[in-house]
């Protein structure tokens, strides 16, 4: 069972706070919530909304229809009421003659003590409609105002007003949730929070970044938690500073990270190239948004795959991972630190605005499979080496590393082509060896990363749909819809976007075997489509794209896939 709720109004009306509280209540009551926001790039004014699904099963698809609409302003009401689902409950924020309603949220808020509590009043109504536990809900309200007595009293009153008023609502829709699982201990967490938490699990000890939507949440959360983690967090003066700081920290033996969006990542290009030749691990979170240049600063796209693949001149033995959903961000990020250090190379984690700003109920993260060992020489091992050379030539292209000052060994790192001991050299014979070393490293990575290729949902249907990043969950939901009308397809999600050549055979066969192949991606340029073209005939691929800066919605996606696959 799933109920879709839209909470809409002007920026500054407290929609984010109210929806966050509602998602927490749903989670604590033992259900699953998934929400995303759409907002204009403003601090005050401008329409925005939170779109939330509440279900007794895990949810993650992006919806644009709603069974309950709480419209806090007149403009929100006039804009979104027409699009509400059949028989939807419309909760009116401000009286409007075109939308007769039993009560008005604004008055209930003012009766409680302040118009500003309108979002909490709405929550009271919604909690009642969903049949959620009142005690759990009120505890959540209380916690939001701890230490602020006046506001606490006011908001509890606001919640009560909403809860009571809800009894006046008559609806044919089945909105009350079946019994939930409140002892499951699930987490209500945002995409950017999950990535930051994954970094903590991955051992991040140095984070530097320059604020840029939608990536800013990663450094902000690490900074917020900085008293509870042994991590240095520093706001960089610019993105070039950020990437070079991450490389410097890694050189000194820390586990280093930076985060940015497309424009900032462009600035980091030379730094990525530096990490490749210096052979310093670095984790770079690239949270995508529409480009080119400033593009749509607070909107959705997944258009930077080729940028991630080609940034940094010369041979950069990189790894690119794409985050599939909020919970996946935790595991991918933790894994990224392990891979970066093992291969002493940059690892890029691709996410996007939709994912970063979404919140979801997730099962508590399972730490059991996560690494607990670093990949460096211990002091004892290092001291045993007679003539330590940082860039010693090895069979797999990876040279054992110990950070400077941890042992008596001297560590020389360089951005030029260099000898084994790090001294700059143009010598032709050595240049051949160094080029070979970088190639070997790239080959080693490709040979090892066969366990992170594709997530596959196969039913043996006629068509094949390929996704990457946050579109996966919405396509999966659309697939369930279409199965009901007899349209079926295999679904393959690319978790690892690079290296890919080692999967060439599998990819080629998968595409050739399918009746029709559709790549669903939210960009103008057909990023993954273009990458797959290296492994198959271009004519075999059809791209379903979106170029408006909005996420794919389940309904439209189901309709488009049905059309393309029929």
């Amino acid at each position, binding site marked *: 069972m799933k109920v879709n709720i839209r909470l809409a109004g002007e920026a500054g009306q407290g929609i984010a706070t109210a929806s966050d509280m509602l998602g927490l209540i749903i*989670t604590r009551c033992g259900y699953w919530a998934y929400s995303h926001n759409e907002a204009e790039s403003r601090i005050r004014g401008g329409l925005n909304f939170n779109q939330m699904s509440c279900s007794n099963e895990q949810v993650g698809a992006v919806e644009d229809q709603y069974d309950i609409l709480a419209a806090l302003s007149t403009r929100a009401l006039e804009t979104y009421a027409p699009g509400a689902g059949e028989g939807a409950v419309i909760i009116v924020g401000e009286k409007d003659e075109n939308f007769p309603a039993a009560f008005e949220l604004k008055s209930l808020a003012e009766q409680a003590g302040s118009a500003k509590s309108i979002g909490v009043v709405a929550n009271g109504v919604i909690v009642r409609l969903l049949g959620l536990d009142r005690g759990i809900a009120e505890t959540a309200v209380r916690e939001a105002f701890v230490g602020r007595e006046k506001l606490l009293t006011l908001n509890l009153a606001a919640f009560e007003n909403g809860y009571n008023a809800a009894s006046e609502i008559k609806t044919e829709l089945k909105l009350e949730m079946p019994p939930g699982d409140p002892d499951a*201990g*699930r*987490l209500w*967490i945002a995409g950017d*929070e999950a990535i930051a*938490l994954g970094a*903590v*699990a991955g051992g991040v*000890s*140095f984070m*530097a970044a320059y604020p840029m939507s939608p990536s800013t949440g990663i450094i902000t959360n690490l900074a917020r*938690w900085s008293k*509870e*983690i*042994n*991590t*240095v*967090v*520093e706001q*960089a*003066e*610019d993105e070039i*500073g950020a990437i*070079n*700081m*991450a*490389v*410097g*920290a890694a*050189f*000194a*033996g*820390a*586990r*280093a990270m930076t985060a940015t969006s497309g424009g900032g990542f462009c600035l980091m290009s*030379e*730094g990525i190239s*530096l990490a490749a030749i210096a052979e310093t691990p670095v984790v770079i979170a690239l949270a995508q948004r529409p480009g080119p240049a400033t593009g749509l600063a607070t909107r959705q796209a997944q258009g930077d795959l080729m940028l991630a693949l080609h940034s940094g001149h010369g041979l950069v033995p990189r790894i690119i991972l794409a985050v599939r959903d909020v919970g996946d961000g*935790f595991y991918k990020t*933790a894994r990224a630190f392990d891979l970066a250090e093992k291969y002493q190379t940059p690892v890029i984690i691709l996410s996007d605005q939709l994912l970063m700003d979404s919140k979801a109920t997730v099962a508590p*993260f399972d*730490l059991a499979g996560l690494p*607990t*060992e*670093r990949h460096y020489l211990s002091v004892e091992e290092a001291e045993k080496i007679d003539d330590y050379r940082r860039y010693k030539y090895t069979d797999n292209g990876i040279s054992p590393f110990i*950070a*400077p*000052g*941890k042992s*008596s*060994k*001297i*560590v*020389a*790192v*360089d*951005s030029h082509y260099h000898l084994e001991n790090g*001294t*700059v050299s143009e010598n032709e014979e050595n240049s051949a060896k160094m080029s070979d070393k970088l190639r070997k490293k790239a080959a080693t990575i490709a040979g090892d990363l066969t366990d992170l290729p594709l997530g596959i949902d196969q039913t043996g249907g006629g068509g094949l749909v390929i996704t990457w990043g946050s579109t996966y969950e919405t396509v999966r939901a659309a697939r369930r819809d279409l199965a009901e009308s007899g349209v079926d397809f295999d679904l393959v999600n690319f978790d690892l976007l690079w290296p890919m050549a080692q999967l060439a055979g599998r990819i080629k066969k998968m595409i050739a075997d399918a009746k029709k192949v559709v790549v669903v991606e939210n960009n103008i340029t057909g990023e993954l489509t273009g990458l797959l073209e290296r492994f198959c005939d271009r004519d075999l691929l059809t791209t379903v794209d979106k170029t408006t800066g909005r996420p794919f919605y389940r309904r439209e996606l189901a309709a488009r896939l049905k059309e393309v696959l029929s």
Partner: protein
Amino acid sequence: MRAEISQYKKETVNSWCPGCGNFAILNGVPQALVDLGLSPDRVIVISDIGQAGKMPHYMRVNMFNGLHGRAIPLAVAAKLSADDMTVMVHLGDGGAYGEGGNHLLHAIRRNIDITVVVHDNYRYGLTKGQASPTTPYNTVTSLDFDGVKSGPVNPLALAVSQSCTFVAQASSADKDSIIEMIRAGINHKGTALINIKQPCVTFDKVHTFKYYSDNCYRLREDYDPTDREAAYRLVHSTDAKVPLGIIYREDRPTLDEALLAGKNRPVRDTPLDPKAAEKLFYKFR
């Protein structure tokens, strides 16, 4: 490990021009480090690209020769990650005041315990003689055939105006000034900027060793480097003479102290423990 000059010696082929002003710095740095009891394993020298950037390759010491203009961010992060190490940066006037100008400005803001040594020779030597940000107006260079038409940066004034907590100048024409200022800069807690005036024997026929010998002077005993007004006057002086010594000095809390307070140090030694994330789960329940 006891510190000795011989520990810093490395067998290499040097590619600087004979008589280059860099040699005085290459010889002075190990002396300063040994005077402070620092052996090579306790020191990190970070440089960028240029003739100055080659310096750590000619020494036996922990080093990172990074990208042009980007030595300072490497050093800031290295210091924050391994704060038990002595971190020193060597840049040319191009890397420090041009390509890397923004990073220098912010290193001054940060007041982080690193020592930034600028090899200021008014030219880009490695790329064959273009102007640097400090080249005097109207100087003919290998790119400005009619002479440089932009005014030079005044790095000492910039540093003093931004309250850099240690600003000093030395010269390759006065070898001892290099050793003394580097010692003092490393001892200073906070960002230490040491501008070293040196001749470029190949591309600058005006500012020769003789020019510097004739025009450099040591700041007098009665010059008080904690006197801001005196420093302002000194760095804005139109006098052609080149002051050597500590120009300005103050004590201010450092970024490394602030960010590392309450942390287990050095932060690079943090054990890898995924449970650190579990401890934060309560924030999401």
